[in-house]
């Protein structure tokens, strides 16, 4: 039986998630025996056209060319997996979605007219159908391995859907919010990192995005009781690496609207 053909694509991103594939030091050689990596610009000069059995897509859509390119990727791919917060939620660069992008460009470039970019940074699923989303900024490489192995075995990938809180309990990490009053997005954030930040004495900053059915309003009310400035909470939600995900965005927008209402009265 021929090996499934794998392609790796990059859009607006830092390259960290696709790099995770090369960071599977103990598994890479065995994996390459089972999967034929036929398109992976960062790792190989072998460049084969589609169709592909599996496409891993990193990065968000920020240019008109990329909005076209992702359609071709979708046509070429049997199973399309987005890897990481940029591809899944628009990434940190989605902060432009609340701002005047022309002003952003003028801030950064002396001659902004040379730069072609869209006013928004949007996740892949806003453009094409996505078969599986792998969360994280960056993704967890063991989860990437699980996705690839499950596809090889012909089953759905199994990745956790619970919140970071549950993982802290499992690790035996003392709650930083309860014990130290440290603001933490753990209660509304998807696990996948293994609850890293609390184990380093800091609050979670939400890099795996919202957990299933998060009660964000309850958390932000708790943050207020901890005397966290509302502007800080808004920055922590909308300004995070998954800030444009619907759950973080809507709570951030709600607080912002509330705040501007307060100011106008």
């Amino acid at each position, binding site marked *: 039986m021929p090996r499934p053909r794998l392609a790796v694509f990059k859009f607006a991103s830092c390259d960290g998630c696709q790099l995770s594939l090369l960071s599977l030091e103990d598994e890479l050689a065995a994996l390459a025996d089972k999967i034929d990596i036929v398109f992976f*610009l960062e790792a190989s000069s072998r460049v084969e056209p589609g169709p592909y059995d599996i496409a891993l897509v990193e990065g968000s859509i920020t240019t008109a060319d990329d909005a076209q390119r992702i359609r071709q990727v979708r046509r070429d791919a049997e199973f399309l997996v987005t890897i990481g917060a940029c591809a899944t939620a628009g990434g940190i660069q989605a902060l432009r979605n609340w701002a005047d992008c022309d002003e952003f460009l003028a801030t950064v470039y002396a001659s902004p007219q040379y730069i072609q970019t869209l006013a928004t940074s949007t996740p892949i699923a806003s453009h094409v159908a996505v078969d599986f989303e792998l969360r994280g900024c960056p993704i967890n490489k063991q989860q990437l391995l699980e996705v690839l192995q499950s596809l090889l075995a012909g089953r759905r990938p199994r990745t956790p859907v619970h919140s970071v809180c549950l993982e802290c309990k499992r690790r035996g990490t003392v709650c930083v919010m309860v014990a130290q009053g440290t603001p933490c997005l753990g209660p509304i954030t998807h696990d996948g990192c293994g609850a890293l*930040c609390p184990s380093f004495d800091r609050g979670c900053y939400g890099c795996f995005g919202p957990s299933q059915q998060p009660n964000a309003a309850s958390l932000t009310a708790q943050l207020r009781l901890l005397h966290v400035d509302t502007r800080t909470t808004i920055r922590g939600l909308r300004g995070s690496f998954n800030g444009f995900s619907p759950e973080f965005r809507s709570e951030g927008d709600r607080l912002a609207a509330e705040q501007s209402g307060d100011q106008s009265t």
Partner: protein
Amino acid sequence: MSQRRTIRVEALTRVEGEAALHLQLRDGAVEHVRLNIYEPPRLFEAFLRGRALEDVPDITARICGICPVAYQMSSVHALEAALGIEMPEELQVLRRLLYCGEWIESHALHVHMLHAPDFLGYDSALAMAKEYPLEFQRGLEIRKYGNQLLETLGGRAIHPVNVSVGGFHRAPRRDEIEPLVPSFQRGLELAIAATRWVAGFDFPTFERPYDFVALEHPDEYAMCAGFISGSDGLHIAAADFEQTFHERQVPHSTALQGVRRDTGRTYLVGPLARLNLNRAQLAPLARRLADDVGLEHPCRNIFKSIVARSIEIVHAYEVALAVLQDYRPPKVSRVPYQRRAGEGAAATEAPRGLLYHRYRMDDEGLIAAANIVPPTSQNQSQIEDDLAQYLPSVVDSSNAEIADACERLVRSYDPCISCSAHFLKVTTVRQP
């Protein structure tokens, strides 16, 4: 009638990020050379404005998934300069340790996964692995211990969570550090063997009169701090970077290009520049190895950057091992500070070369302006200049062969294009 040849490489491979190469020849003479960076800009400097200074190291890490620690280091040093924080020696040592992990991880990725296949005639490291399985596995293992160090000290290898302004969120316990010692002893041996292997590759003959620029420190092979020094006698404080170097924008690139402000000349940053300027300060085994493998001093052949990188891996292993063996947790993991208005700049040595950051913040500790100059932006015009000089020596080949030879030259720089396209100046000060 004159004859014009255009050679295009639409997507460079085995480099980090997205770029194309456009070469044009007329009657065998070079008409133009363009490294066309089309990587979509992510506008970091714009959205850093209005963020709390404590958020900066987590945000700037996301500029690059291959060298996030470099971005964290340059940003915390710049912010600490603005806040007037003096870092205790034991925390500086821990930061150097973390940075060693990244030098190993990043350099080993380039040497073994991206660059070595060029010298052995393969499309990729995976293709190379069939005939060089031991060398391939050795490269992965060298990289793995660097990643393990990043995971232990930083929480994870990509976008570590433990770096903070003033130090670390939590210093590791001794029992977390100890298991790394045998790994690093083994990694050091492997890195030495790998350097000998790499130094035996066949290198194109190509020398340039580079103006090397790197940090220089009186007591060590500079990594986290020092003066900016150049092979032409340049010696300035890191904070004076912008008076000496200039970034220009060109229509064919989303990255700015660095040049010397006084002469308009290109300059070279990165492992070759560091090794040429600071070779005597390498750790003992690395220094002896550089002599043993016959690396000339100074070395002006960019294709030999792979040897320089391999020697720096050995150096990083030695420096890290010494810290790991004697590790005692620091008295405090983080120096307390008061937020205040101010401005600060710093440069550190990212794996790819000098990385300069400057921030200005208001009295609430929110960022008012940021300027980040990554190494690949600085090398970009040097790369184009090299290509223009190199092309005549390969001009008698087919278009495909010329494209391949030029791509190899670009790859020798280990350009990090994702980094280069995300910076540029913030000149406007605006409160959100």
